[in-house]
């Protein structure tokens, strides 16, 4: 039993090292202060122990210098922690442009994964080593959280939203995937594996069984089935705006704001079209809330992203992967 006692998690992503460095810094600071305080307490308690029943302590009331010292020094140290931590956090929150995209849906109690080329998996995620991967995530019911300890990252999936998470795996292997946000009875069974593969093996795996066509093509079918095309036509004849080339572009809204048409915006436009009305259009579009599954929404998004002039940033889903690029700006 005791040979089986890991004390430190595997490092398998680009920022595992960064997070661990931060961790060791905090451990060092904590160890220093805890030991200092413990030591002082023990020393004082022994050195100045009470020797007679009515002995009293010295008439010391305080010292401004010391107060300043132990206010400013911790303040300085914590500001280092803040800046360093914030910097790592930004890295964690900004997926590089070249990231390969995979769609994830959480539901009680499983993770459903769809690759752009059409592979689907449940409670497993296959990714290539050495390529940034961006997960576009949603949930069908309650909040869950996609957590891969070996990559030192996690992010919640939240009803009504599209959230993202990215990483770049650095070591082939099989790593735990957990649901970290409590989500009901089988929360602890909402687990799986992340399989990091060599690029060639990954390509082989990808071409393994795409059966139902690519994600975008399924989105396209939905686009027809839900009659989106009756309003959104490739030319500006429809009642709704043209969606071709929309992704990644700034959109002027009726209330004067401008937003970028990213995935969250697309999701909101489909599920809750009243939230942001495009300038120059009537709020005609019905809500599709409850009519499309979360997976369907992601398929539609994948489809819209492939539409029209290749102005969208990031490779389109069907292109072969470009060589891994340094993602962090």
């Amino acid at each position: 039993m005791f040979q089986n006692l890991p004390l430190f998690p595997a490092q398998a992503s680009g920022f595992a090292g960064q997070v661990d460095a931060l961790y060791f810094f905090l451990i060092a600071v904590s160890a220093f202060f805890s030991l200092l305080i413990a030591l002082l307490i023990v020393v004082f308690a022994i050195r100045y122990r009470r020797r007679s029943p009515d002995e009293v302590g010295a008439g010391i009331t305080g010292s401004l210098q010391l107060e300043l010292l132990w206010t400013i020094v911790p303040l300085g140290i914590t500001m280092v922690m803040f800046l360093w931590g914030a910097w790592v956090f930004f890295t964690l929150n900004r997926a590089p442009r070249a990231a390969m995209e995979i769609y994830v849906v959480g539901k009680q109690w499983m993770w459903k994964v769809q690759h752009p080329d059409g592979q689907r998996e449940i409670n497993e995620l296959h990714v290539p080593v050495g390529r940034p991967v961006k997960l576009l995530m949603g949930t069908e019911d309650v909040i869950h959280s996609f957590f891969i300890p070996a990559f030192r990252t996690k992010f919640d999936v939240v009803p009504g939203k599209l959230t993202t998470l990215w990483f770049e795996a650095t070591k082939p292997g099989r790593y735990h995937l957990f649901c970290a946000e409590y989500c009901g009875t089988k929360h602890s069974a909402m687990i799986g594996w992340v399989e990091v593969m060599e690029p060639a093996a990954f390509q082989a795996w990808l071409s393994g069984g795409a059966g139902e066509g690519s994600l975008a093509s399924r989105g396209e079918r939905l686009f027809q089935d839900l009659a989106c095309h009756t309003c959104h036509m490739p030319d500006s004849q429809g009642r709704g705006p043209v969606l071709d080339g929309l992704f990644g572009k700034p959109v002027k809204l009726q209330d004067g704001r401008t937003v970028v048409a990213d995935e969250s915006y697309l999701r909101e436009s489909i599920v809750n079209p009243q939230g942001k009305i495009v300038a120059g259009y009537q709020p005609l579009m019905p809500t599709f809330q409850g009519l499309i599954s979360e997976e369907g929404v992601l398929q539609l998004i994948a489809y819209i992203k492939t539409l029209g002039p290749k102005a969208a940033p990031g490779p389109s889903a069907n292109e072969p992967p470009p060589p891994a690029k340094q993602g962090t700006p």
Partner: protein
Amino acid sequence: MSDAQFVPSPATHAHHPAQAHHFDSLEQQQEASTLGMWVFLVNEIMFFGGLFMAYLVYRTWYPDAFAAGSSHLNIPLGATNTAVLIISSLTMALAVHAAQTSWRRGQIVFIILTIALGTTFLVIKAFEYADKFTHHLVPGPHFQWPDEKLRAPVEIFYSLYFALTGLHALHMVIGIGIMLWLLWMAWRGRFDAEYYSPVEVSGLYWHFVDIVWIFLFPLLYLIGAHVRHV
């Protein structure tokens, strides 16, 4: 305190019958009650504050739905109720004044007026609620809204409407209960220029409930006024 001295209680003068034994003086007791009520009202601000926060978020998200939802509220009734509450605040203030000037008849009259106005408010509110029921504007499975596209956010509006006005009405009911007790005490001639803090403190509560309504009225009723003619 090794050299703390103990002095006998300073006062030998007769205590007011309303003074509790753990206070040194009636004045200390009255100051304590007033401060206590103010602290309680601060707590009340935060209690409604949580709801106002929700209102603020959803109002920024769904301005149109809120305006649309609001346009189904009855402005004349809401305005009347605002006026009713303001008058009741006046009568309450006058009741406190009557207590401060040891005018028993005035206390009784103004407290009765306050109760009557508070009840009027609740009756009008009840009519409004009844109207919402018949028009299926109560959130839940029977909620209906003609414009399907706005249904969901309008339901949020009505959820907040009922939560806010419902809690406000609950405060009114409690306030009326307190007023009835005050009436009983005033009737028995308990309040005079020397001892009137129950009236004063209840007055603070009553005015606070009025203030909440002063905000609810524009936030709920008036935001849709200028769109309903479009």
